[in-house]
């Protein structure tokens, strides 16, 4: 009885609708179709199913061939090739979000001017970051922290001891730090990242996963101490904009392009992927190979090459609090609630 809904081609649909058990309009056809799951004999069943799969595969290959042939023919004839079909992805079909930042929004710019990161982003204050951990440190923790220190320029590490986080915030404020990062570990693995903007900036709590340290990356590069360039991808909504600026405020605002070092925060489906690369532009000679062998013109193409260095991990925003860290009394600007996950195509960042 249970059958998987097959994303069939147009031809298969007719068969499917019968198979679904709906009052069929064509009883003659119904009798001909036998589902493999209705056959009790395993041997026979396997054979029928394999045959069905093979038929489907052949069908699909025929379609692809026909499509390619049509395109080639159209190109040869000089006509326009038939339009390429674009597959629907979740990003394509994302629910339209009205909080997306628009370029013509004056209130957005005013809000940006007034928010907490503005002094840093306007280069009035240089960012100074304090990194610490939760109370119990772990196996991978120190390695991760030392890598973070190499990624973020102008950062210091202090051992946690048993200080209250609120006291640490005050200490950092006194010493003029602009942000505080707390790496939280769980089961001997770094698990969450708490980034607190100072003096009274927002607090973002991220869930950290999929951490790969530098030593585990094949052919990794070694980061230098030049200021990195920042790439922030896909932070479109207002909330995303705020988080993006938060990340921006961790790094100094004068990237050293000669250092060829880039740090990327790529947001996709509410997961933020952190990568750290060094890049280099290669000039390659590209001999045009093909039918016209005699006039091979050597074209020069510039190709960038990337070498990954430093840690790579993914973050997911759990909560964004309005002031500094204060669980009991703090106000949340954004908190994830299960009732918000009603649609697979709805994202917040």
């Amino acid at each position, binding site marked *: 009885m249970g059958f998987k809904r097959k994303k069939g081609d147009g031809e298969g649909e007719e068969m499917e609708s019968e198979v679904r058990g709906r009052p069929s309009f064509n009883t003659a056809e119904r009798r001909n179709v036998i589902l493999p799951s209705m056959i009790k004999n395993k041997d026979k069943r396997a054979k029928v199913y394999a045959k069905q799969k093979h038929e489907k595969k052949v069908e699909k290959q025929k379609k692809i061939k026909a499509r390619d042939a049509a395109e080639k023919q159209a190109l040869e004839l000089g006509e326009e090739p038939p339009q390429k079909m674009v597959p629907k992805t979740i990003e394509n079909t994302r629910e339209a979000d*009205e*909080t997306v930042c628009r370029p013509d*929004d*004056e*209130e*957005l710019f*005013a*809000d940006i*001017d*007034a928010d907490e990161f503005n002094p840093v982003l306007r280069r009035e204050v240089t960012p100074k970051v304090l990194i610490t951990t939760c109370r119990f440190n772990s196996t991978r923790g120190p390695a991760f922290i030392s890598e973070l220190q190499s990624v973020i320029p102008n950062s210091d590490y202090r051992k946690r001891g048993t200080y209250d986080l609120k006291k640490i915030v005050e200490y950092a404020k006194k010493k003029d730090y602009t942000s505080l990062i707390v790496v939280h570990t769980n089961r001997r693995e770094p698990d969450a990242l708490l980034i607190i903007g100072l003096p009274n900036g927002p607090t973002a709590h991220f869930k950290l996963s999929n951490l790969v340290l530098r030593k585990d990356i094949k052919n990794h590069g070694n980061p230098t101490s030049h200021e990195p360039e920042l790439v922030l991808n896909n932070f479109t909504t*207002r909330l995303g904009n705020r988080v993006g600026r938060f990340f921006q405020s961790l790094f100094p605002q004068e990237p050293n392009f000669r250092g060829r070092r880039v740090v990327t925060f790529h947001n996709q489906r509410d997961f933020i992927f952190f990568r750290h690369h060094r890049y280099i532009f290669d000039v390659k000679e590209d001999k045009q190979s093909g039918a016209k062998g005699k006039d091979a013109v050597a074209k020069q193409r510039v190709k960038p090459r990337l070498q990954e260095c430093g840690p790579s991990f993914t973050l997911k925003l759990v909560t964004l609090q*309005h002031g500094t860290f204060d*669980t*009991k*009394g*703090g*106000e*949340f*600007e*954004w*908190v*994830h*609630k299960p*009732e*918000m996950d*009603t649609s697979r195509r709805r994202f*917040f960042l």
Partner: protein
Amino acid sequence: MPRVISNETYGCPPIRALTFDSLGLIKVTEARGKERGTPIVVNTWGEPNASRCVLAASMDDRLSNPLLAVARKDGNVEVRNPCNGDLHFAYSVFGDDGSPPEDDDEISGLHLFRKQKDDHTERSCTLLTFMKKGDVSLRTVQFPDARDDSTDDAAPPKSWKACASGELLVGKVDGTENFGLFGGKRVEVNIWDLEQCTKIWSAKSPPKDNLGIFTPTWFTCAAFMSNDDHRKFVTGTKSHQVRLYDVSAQRRPVLSFDFHETAITAITEDPDGHTIYVGNASADLASFDIRTGKLLGNFLGKCSGSIRSVVRHPQHQVIASCGLDRYLRVYDVKTRQLISAVFLKQHLTGLVFDSGFSGEEIAVANTEVDAETEETMEQEGDEEENEDETEEEAPVKKKKSKKEKRSREKVSEGEEIDEVRSKKKTRDHKKKTKKVKHIQQD
């Protein structure tokens, strides 16, 4: 134009809400029409400026001459006309020089009185403002009049200090406007008689619990339970507790219960006297029956930011909430469903309903405004407020040539939609100078 999300089953009853945000903008959201339309933002007043962040607001939405008082972060208190945003009057609580005496002191709240004390009713209003450091000031201001040039207040402002130490965060005036309630961080709730400026009652904190832990007092919001009884009120605390106090019974709270785990940020009462709506810092909004302390239900509306303000419409069965997630949400009271949500782009700090709005579909009437009042904080002598015409006729269609220039407004569409009442409720709108109510349109 910000878009809205609306639930298809319910439409929104005709409401008009004014929201205040952290950049000092005042936005007017209306839902018009008998057929239950969706709310849309019709107007935005003000220029975005973070130092003019609105900290508190209060509205007197009577039918004639409604007033809206707005308190801002830079110490200015403005009295405006809620129909078109025009500034009637503004003054600074920090004195005439306008600079705060110490850093940190800011207005915690204000209340605009509804009853009139003097005979020049149309030109004056009474405001109660209280500051974080504890100064409470009760002041009658007169609108400047074009006719006489003297602009002195009727009486010097009465002021007193409501708390010696700690911060004053909560203040409410009861329905009869004789009593005021103040409380805050390390300040127990007090009730003051506003005529004599004396404290008549103060609360006592609940005893230590059995572990010996004493939670420090920190009240974040309060509401009187009913309009004619000043004795019962509910408060919300920073330690996620809702407390009901009865002045005539005892000094300790009569009933107290916990609500989730974050600070309670907004609380309001229902006109039926026994239901309250509570919103907290992690975006939960719920209604409780205060007689028993039982939770009636949660309002699920995918709210994700701390709720700064909850108001219940006095006539319709709707409740609206606004908060740090930049949305204004309207819910139905009986079914607790979200009716609609309007995206308002900034962190919202306050919300009031304009209950004199009937939302009928009428022809667009453009008001003719004589422009000069630009955005200055000084008192302009141009406005004539005492033209108190009452219109008894049915909605009169007015169409005049539009001569716009509103002070400090960014009129999003080109037109001004004026609400004109039907026969029963009449309300006139303060129009500048030329009154053309009887001019029929061409």
